[in-house]
């Protein structure tokens, strides 16, 4: 049994929030760099250059990549041989988020009540997904999620008769309807199966994958490639100004589901696809 204190969790969360807000992940930079040579529109290429320049400025000046520093999402993979001391997990994560958002001058975007508003002042509560794993380590993955892309995401309860074609149509339609609002070029997370609650979680989790990391099942890997190609024919382009780079990646996660059901969730992620992880 290994003991980890809530203070260690808080410190790790603080670091993750700051890193994610200021530093564009390297694999994403690689995708953007590569799309510069394939993007057909001049306006689109200039947006891609601006995105890379923005990342350089943000890293150098310690300024957020985007003013929308998002809801603070976390996946905590807690080894079952870990004993967590101090305060509870939610409180430990919230404290880390509060510290980072205050000290890092990140925008606090959370309101206490969805209809009556009132900013909570420190971007808490954090949104924490807890998963139990083997071993005696704690892996924390952080995804700050902005709302431009979140607002354009969708959940549909399709009939099984819709099949693969219906799923692909829904994904392409979601991207088309999102247009410039979701801040393309996008990372498209797709959750297929499960139920009304699990499909969106799958879609969200898909956004954590690294560039080029295909679904291990060749059937879904080829669907990812086909969807990416189709989406990039839409012509939305970087910044929505027209072009051939509308998505950088499509990631599909699947789960068993009821025989009468075909839930599909499409979670869009903007080009400021920030994420960071650490292992304690």
């Amino acid at each position: 049994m290994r003991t980890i204190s809530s203070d260690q969790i808080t410190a790790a969360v603080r670091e993750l929030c700051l890193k994610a807000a200021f530093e564009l992940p390297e694999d994403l930079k690689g995708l953007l760099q590569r799309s510069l040579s394939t993007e057909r529109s001049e306006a689109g290429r200039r947006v891609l250059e601006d995105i890379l320049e923005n990342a350089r400025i943000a890293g150098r000046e310690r300024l957020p990549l985007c003013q929308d520093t998002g809801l603070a999402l976390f996946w905590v993979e807690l080894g079952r041989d870990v004993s967590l001391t101090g305060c509870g997990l939610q409180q430990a994560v919230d404290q880390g988020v509060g510290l980072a958002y205050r000290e890092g001058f990140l925008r606090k975007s959370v309101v206490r009540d969805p209809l009556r508003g009132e900013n909570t002042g420190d971007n808490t509560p954090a949104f924490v997904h807890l998963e139990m794993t083997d071993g005696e380590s704690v892996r924390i993955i952080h995804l700050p999620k902005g709302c431009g892309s979140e607002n354009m995401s969708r959940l549909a309860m399709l009939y099984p008769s819709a099949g693969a074609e219906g799923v692909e149509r829904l994904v392409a339609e979601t991207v088309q309807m999102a247009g410039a609002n979701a801040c393309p070029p996008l990372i498209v997370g797709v959750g297929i199966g499960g139920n009304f609650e699990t499909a969106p979680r799958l879609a969200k989790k898909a956004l954590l994958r690294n560039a080029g990391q295909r679904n291990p099942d060749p059937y879904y890997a080829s669907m990812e490639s086909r969807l990416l190609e189709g989406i990039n024919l839409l012509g939305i382009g970087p910044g929505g100004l027209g072009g051939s780079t509308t998505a950088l990646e499509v990631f599909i996660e699947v789960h068993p589901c009821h025989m009468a059901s075909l839930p599909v969730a499409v979670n869009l992620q903007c080009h400021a696809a920030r994420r960071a992880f650490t292992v304690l």
Partner: protein
Amino acid sequence: MERKFHLNSPLNAEAARSLSAGQEVLISGPAFTARDAAHLRIARLLEQGANPPFDLNGALIIYAGASPAPPGRIIGSIGPTTSSRMDAFTPALLEAGLAGMIGKGPRSQAVNQAIARHQAVYFGAVGGLGALLSLRIKNAELVAFEELGPEAVYRLELDGFPVRVLTDSRGNDFLSSLGIRDRMAQIP
């Protein structure tokens, strides 16, 4: 590459009329930040016949909520938010003299028609370039609704802020001219 047009705010009607959908423009001068909550309050004030917290005549609104300014900086990261969330309020603001808006993404038909009726203009900025765009702000001061935090109204002094005309004073809509919807049908 087309030459970028320099435009000063507050906007005069003649300059606004000279712009065409799709044109790139660098804007300098004052712009007021306002997003969902501030729009709701301004709309209520207008309904009550009260004065909004800044003079709407000829004014330019930017749909944005910056991140807080770190010590020694004028402003934190700043960029446009989705404009369509403000569509419900926009015709009334245009009626009250608003001359231009900076935001992200398409507007409703009603807004585009109101833009044409008042010979106003809607500009689009690229989202997700907050650090880069913060360098195009010369000054920022709080004007109203401080309690709204990032949704408060600030008067910004823009300095060559890069935008593109998305709806011009004749109501021409650049984004719909891209034909994205038509291309959907051609995808295998």
